[in-house]
């Protein structure tokens, strides 16, 4: 050994070690692209399946987000309508309105006389003729209460219970009650979407894992050669880890593009729907940060899938 003429110690210095590390990664990276290019159809299939799997929870998140916006937009009009007894006195309605104005959970109070109610009905199509045939006004006084913006369910319930005990009150109708039901429903929906996202992420992991497994099996000769010339396990593994990373990244990009396409396709019909609600509602896409994060997370997922498969498939030589 001592007599062996050695080259100058090229692989010893620190900068060289760092550079060598970079070169070996470049080798693995190029090799990984060969893997993907070597099975173009399989690569395309893997990327597409992964893209669709990841687009699904994104789509649900998109729908859920818009449902939430819808709720918020409509919630601003939520009101509590107090119908006074038809044969009651105008004074009861006035007194109730005055006492309500002092309460802190009430933003505005409006008293509608039977006459106003009749005039409102008359403008609605189909009603005007029917009303003409009436010879008296059947409508009661109505006290319309708009609660403060962020009234909680307990306060609202207390207010309604109190209203029911007031003299001259016939009926209390809470237009905001559906809001609470919607919120509860949305909470369930959000949980479901998260669960779905986890399940589909696992599916994506398996899809990438299977592709990488096929890549490894198709390359057993090459793996053997690398091992025989002294490649470390991480060198042998690296092309497949990069391949998993690419699968994931491409799948994530496909998912993002699909979601954006869907947003675009939905935006026109939703705009029409919004117009029918007086334009208070507009379509909201997913946040950009989330869309940008999807390919990154998908790439990490692909890497992980490849890593798990490599641990199994490349365990022991011979």
């Amino acid at each position, binding site marked *: *050994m*001592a*007599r*062996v*003429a*050695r*080259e100058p110690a*090229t*692989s010893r210095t620190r900068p*060289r*070690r760092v*550079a*060598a*590390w970079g*070169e*070996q990664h470049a*080798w693995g990276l190029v090799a990984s692209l*060969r893997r993907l290019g*070597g099975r173009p159809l399989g690569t395309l299939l893997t990327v597409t399946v992964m893209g669709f799997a990841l687009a699904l929870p994104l789509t649900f998140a998109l729908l859920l987000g818009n449902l939430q916006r819808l709720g918020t937009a409509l919630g601003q009009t939520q009101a509590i309508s107090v119908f006074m007894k038809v044969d009651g006195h105008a004074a009861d309605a006035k007194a109730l309105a005055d006492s309500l104005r002092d309460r802190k959970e009430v933003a505005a109070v409006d008293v509608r006389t039977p006459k106003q109610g009749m005039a409102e009905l008359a403008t609605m199509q189909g009603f005007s003729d029917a009303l003409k045939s009436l010879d008296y006004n059947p409508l009661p006084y109505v006290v319309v209460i708009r609660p403060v913006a962020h009234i909680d369910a307990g306060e609202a319930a207390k207010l309604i219970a109190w209203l029911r005990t007031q003299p001259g009150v016939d009926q209390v109708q809470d237009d905001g009650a559906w809001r609470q039901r919607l919120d509860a429903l949305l909470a369930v929906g959000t949980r479901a979407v998260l669960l779905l996202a986890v399940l589909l992420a696992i599916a994506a992991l398996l899809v990438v894992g299977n592709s990488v497994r096929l890549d490894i099996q198709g390359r057993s*000769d*090459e793996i*053997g*050669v*690398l*091992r*025989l*010339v*002294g*490649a*470390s*396990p991480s*060198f042998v593994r690296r092309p497949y880890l990069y391949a998993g990373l690419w699968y994931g990244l491409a799948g994530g990009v496909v998912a993002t593009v699909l979601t954006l396409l869907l947003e675009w396709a939905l935006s026109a019909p939703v705009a029409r729907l919004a117009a029918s609600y007086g334009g208070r509602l507009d379509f909201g896409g997913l946040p950009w940060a989330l869309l940008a994060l999807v390919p990154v997370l998908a790439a990490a997922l692909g890497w992980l899938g490849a890593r798990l498969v490599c641990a199994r498939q490349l365990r*022991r*030589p*011979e």
Partner: protein
Amino acid sequence: MIRFDQVSKRYATGQEALSGLSFQVEPGEMVFVTGHSGAGKSTLLKLLAMIERPTRGTVTVDGRNLSTARAGSIPRLRRKLGMVFQDHRLLMDRSVFANVALPLVIAGIAPAERARRVRAALEKVGLLSYEKQAPAMLSTGEQQRVGIARAIVAKPPLIIADEPTGNLDPQLAAEIMGLFDALQNVGTTVLVASHDLMLIKRTRKRVLVLDHGRLVDDVPATEVRS
């Protein structure tokens, strides 16, 4: 450099490929291993490359007992070894240059230095003008020479070659032997498995003769007659 001590190798099939093999090779020595087909030549080389492990006995390379080496240290040990395979074992989808460069990439040699050494190795086997070609485009003998270039490029202290001249004409075979001889002169130990008796006689190096897994003769270089 190499020591076999009562080494036996029995394959899982029950086939006893080597039995009670003992010999020693000094650093910088060049040795032929010969014998009939199935005598155990490839098996002997596989033990040195840690592709197989001995069933009995110990194989020592450079003072290191291979039988007790951990699996994790195999890549590092193999980097000190240049191997020429009976079946070339090239990466068919990479260029000749990339194939020869592989051990240098693994060793972390800088690109400029790497290119220089790859070209030097290709020149030694007479394939400098083929560096951009794919191995599949080359003749079997040319592929074999690419394998030889890959084995010598990292200048390992030990080179083992399994039938490196099996597909070469006598002229080329003699040139490759001259190449190995030159390596030996700079201190590299070379072990060549071959049943080409003509070549062995002309090269005039020590010869180990195997017969059914047993060492039946150990002829010093001085006693090899043409």
